[in-house]
């Protein structure tokens, strides 16, 4: 039997984390009144000040719903069923809409995947920025424009003053994403949530934006949501791997990628081509990711797992597995560096 120590809630010397998600459950009642459809099933995650945490998962894993929960924008009929999201100790779940409005774009900055749909197309860059500044800070329009220009300069937009009068469609994809990052940062947020911020971008532009995000997210604290392990490896201090609405593995980025303990993490790593894999066959994960209606009594990865055993008929808890590591698996991969 593997040891089953549970992780202490938080060691007493810890200061209050920047962000703490505790047992977050998100879902919706089934249309026919049956069992509810669960999208996030008891997620625990913390982000420390100055830390970038990567949330890695495939489509349907619940990763984007986690971002939406953190900004109070879970689309009905989906809703937060239970659990807690604290920002510097302050509970966000159950906030009235008026207070969410001062949180979003204020203390919580957001960057989305597609800068074309993430930016209002009928507003100039200057209008988008100054509106956000004036919603969250008591300044006049002239001062707001100065802040807006500084925000554009800080994210490397050339000719920032002229760009203030440009509209999103007049900018290249890379510039649009810089504008969206400026918008996320303009009110000095405490935490920034970036959902697939480079997925729509070309490789050379992605590299530019990752460099920018690495600098800027470290200044506050950030959650980086991505399907791409390479992107997570590039800028995240810690990563959490999410599968079927549950975190299955978590730990320091390099450690998790070098010594994955959950068979799903190991499977993802073996399935992705890298420059050393030429000539050898890729090892795909058989089957496909489960949908949200799939039964949750057993380990969700069991049907695709080559390490599955009898115990896997009961879903494993996310427990400590070595220093700073957590894994939810009855039969984790033992220490053997990749």
């Amino acid at each position: 039997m593997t040891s089953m120590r549970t992780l202490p809630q938080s060691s007493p010397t810890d200061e209050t984390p920047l962000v703490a998600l505790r047992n977050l459950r998100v879902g919706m009642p089934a249309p026919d009144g049956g069992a509810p459809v669960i999208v996030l099933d008891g997620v625990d995650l913390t982000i420390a000040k100055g830390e970038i945490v990567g949330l890695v998962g495939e489509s349907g894993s619940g990763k984007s719903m986690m971002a939406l929960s953190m900004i109070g924008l879970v689309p009905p009929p989906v809703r937060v069923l239970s659990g807690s999201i604290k920002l510097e100790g302050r509970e966000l779940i159950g906030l009235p809409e008026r207070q969410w409005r001062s949180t979003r774009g204020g203390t919580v900055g957001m960057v989305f995947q597609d800068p074309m749909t993430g930016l209002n197309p009928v507003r100039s860059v200057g209008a988008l920025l100054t509106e956000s500044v004036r919603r969250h800070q008591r300044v006049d329009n002239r001062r707001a424009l100065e802040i807006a220009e500084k925000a554009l300069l800080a994210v490397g937009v050339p000719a920032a003053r002229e760009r203030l009068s440009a509209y999103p469609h007049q900018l290249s994809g890379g510039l649009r994403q810089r504008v969206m990052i400026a918008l996320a940062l303009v009110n000095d947020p405490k935490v920034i949530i970036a959902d697939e911020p480079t997925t729509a971008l070309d490789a050379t532009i992605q590299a530019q934006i990752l460099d920018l995000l690495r600098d800027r997210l470290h200044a506050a604290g950030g959650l980086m949501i991505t399907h791409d392990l390479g992107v997570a490896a590039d800028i995240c201090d810690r990563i959490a791997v999410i599968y079927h609405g549950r975190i299955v593995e978590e730990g320091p980025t390099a450690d998790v990628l070098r010594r994955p303990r959950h068979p799903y993490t190991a499977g993802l790593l073996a399935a992705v081509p890298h420059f050393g894999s030429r000539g050898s066959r890729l090892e795909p994960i058989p089957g496909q990711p489960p949908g949200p209606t799939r039964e949750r009594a057993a380990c969700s990865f069991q049907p695709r797992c080559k390490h599955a055993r009898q115990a896997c008929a009961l879903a494993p808890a996310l427990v400590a597995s070595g220093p700073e590591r957590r894994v939810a698996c009855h039969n984790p991969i033992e220490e053997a560096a990749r």
Partner: protein
Amino acid sequence: MSAPLLEARDLSVTFATRRGNVHALDGVSLSVARGETVGLVGESGSGKSTLAMTLMCATRPTGGTIHFDGREIGHLPQRALRAVRRRLQIIFQDPYASLDPRMKVRRIIAEPLVAHRFGSRAEIAARVRELLEAVGLPPDAADRLPSQFSGGQRQRIAIARAIALSPDLVIADEPVSALDVSIQAQIINLLQDIQQRLGMAYLVIAHDLPLVHQIADRIVVLYLGRVVEQGPAEQITARPLHPYTAGLLAATPTVDGTGRERLVLRGDPPSPINRPSGCPFHPRCPAAQDRCRTEAPALEPQPGGRAVACHFPGSVAPPLAHLLDA
């Protein structure tokens, strides 16, 4: 020595728009030998999808020639293309858009067989069963609609349709980029297995350099409608000669703990409407000199079956060779 299966020479495609002419392809030459896998890499605006459409004769070239098995096809009338299409097939990126949602899988896969008079109804039915098995789908898949399948399974259906007539060349335009990470490897392996059994050539178009490096014998790098570098896959990634290839390699995040190289190309790719003078890459090139601003370099052969279009080849090279020894 046998002629290549597909040979495009000096291919140009120009679209007239209100804002001016777009030179989507500007003198592209490329060849694919029988049974070979060529990987075509480029970013958005590089012209890679226009090239796919032009090679399929869905877009006609404004200049240059395309020879397929020795015959010029770039300017053939539509009717004469039928015989070519039988041997030249394509797989698209989005398996949700490329399969007719109202057609049962049986009909989707049988469509090319019927169009090219493959045989009797019984022969076609038998061939559909054989194809489903070849792409790893159960026989009862034939009676279902595309909407009843996941993205990966739909791409299997598209592959079955593409190989139905045993083509000599399959063009795959971003065949896995719409799929989940855990599914991509299934499809990559399937494409490789099918090639091993049937021996067709592939032209794989992708933005993902590690993917192309995984499956291609040769890599062709496209930038702003021009081939800037081509050669054997291991050599291109181990020792890129063009600064753009080096930049693309350096920009690729890796999971093997080595981290990304710290060479970051500045700026965006320019628009194909306002092409820079001289070398199209010079505004972003860390090694550009005066000559590059005025004189466009030609694609010149290099030792080892390589070619590069650069006045100063090899001047920007991230030390990536260690990744290949790992």
